[in-house]
């Protein structure tokens, strides 16, 4: 979900790099875990700067000095998948789509979804060498629970070479 960056000031504040869709939403997922199983809560105190509270053996300890903050540098923050709110209809978490098995309409295996791209013009799925737009026409069925999706790879438009000409304004 994010990573703790360098210490900020002498009051135990740290810079936090948030990977959430809306960066300031990271504190809504408190408590967060690191890869060693430790538990943290963060509270934003400025733009990209947070105060960290460590939850250790039933006691909460607010990191209030710079050396404590420096000990947390480069800590990666995670949250369990089941704590994410359920997505809307026809909406899917990118993390859920990656790894799904893609099968074609006739039932043949196409491979695994290796990445989901979204550059502002709709999402697209990378399935091996295939890039498929994430539309109802190209991906008519998505079954996250069963770990598969049905793909109808779009055909390529072919036009007569004489139609239209390269260059120039319309």
């Amino acid at each position, binding site marked *: 979900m994010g990573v703790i960056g360098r210490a900020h000031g002498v009051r135990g504040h740290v810079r936090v790099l948030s*990977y959430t*869709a809306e960066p300031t939403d990271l504190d809504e997922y408190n408590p967060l875990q690191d890869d060693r199983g430790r538990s943290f809560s963060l509270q934003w105190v400025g733009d990209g700067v947070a105060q960290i509270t460590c939850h250790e053996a039933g006691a909460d300890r607010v990191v209030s000095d710079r050396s404590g903050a420096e000990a947390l540098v480069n800590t990666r923050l995670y949250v369990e998948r089941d704590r994410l709110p359920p997505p809307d209809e026809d*909406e899917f*978490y*990118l993390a859920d789509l990656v790894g799904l098995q893609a099968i074609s309409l006739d039932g043949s295996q196409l491979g695994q979804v290796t990445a989901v791209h979204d550059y502002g013009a709709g999402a697209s799925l990378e399935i091996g060498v295939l890039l498929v*737009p994430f*539309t109802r026409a190209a991906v008519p069925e998505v079954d996250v629970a069963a770990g598969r999706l049905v793909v109808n790879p779009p055909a390529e438009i072919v036009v007569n070479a004489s139609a*239209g000409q390269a260059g120039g304004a319309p």
Partner: protein
Amino acid sequence: MTRSSWKGPFVDGYLLAKAEAARQSGRNEVIKIWSRRSTILPQFIGLVFGVYNGKKFLPVQVSENMVGHKFGEFSPTRTFTGHSSDKKAKRG
């Protein structure tokens, strides 16, 4: 400097023919194009273009608020996959 308004938006001519063919076919098709410099016109709304980024044809679903931008803006030439985190994708 902005482009003179009397010229109108620049579009490579072959795109118009391909877009027209795609619209008439009504099938699930991607229009592969190399013209990253072309402006997105209102008649392209709803179509899916595969815009070449030097390596692959990235699918670009044209929507209303993309009109006036260039195709190349939606097909980056450098790879950055980012982190999935809590990000969601809506099926278009």
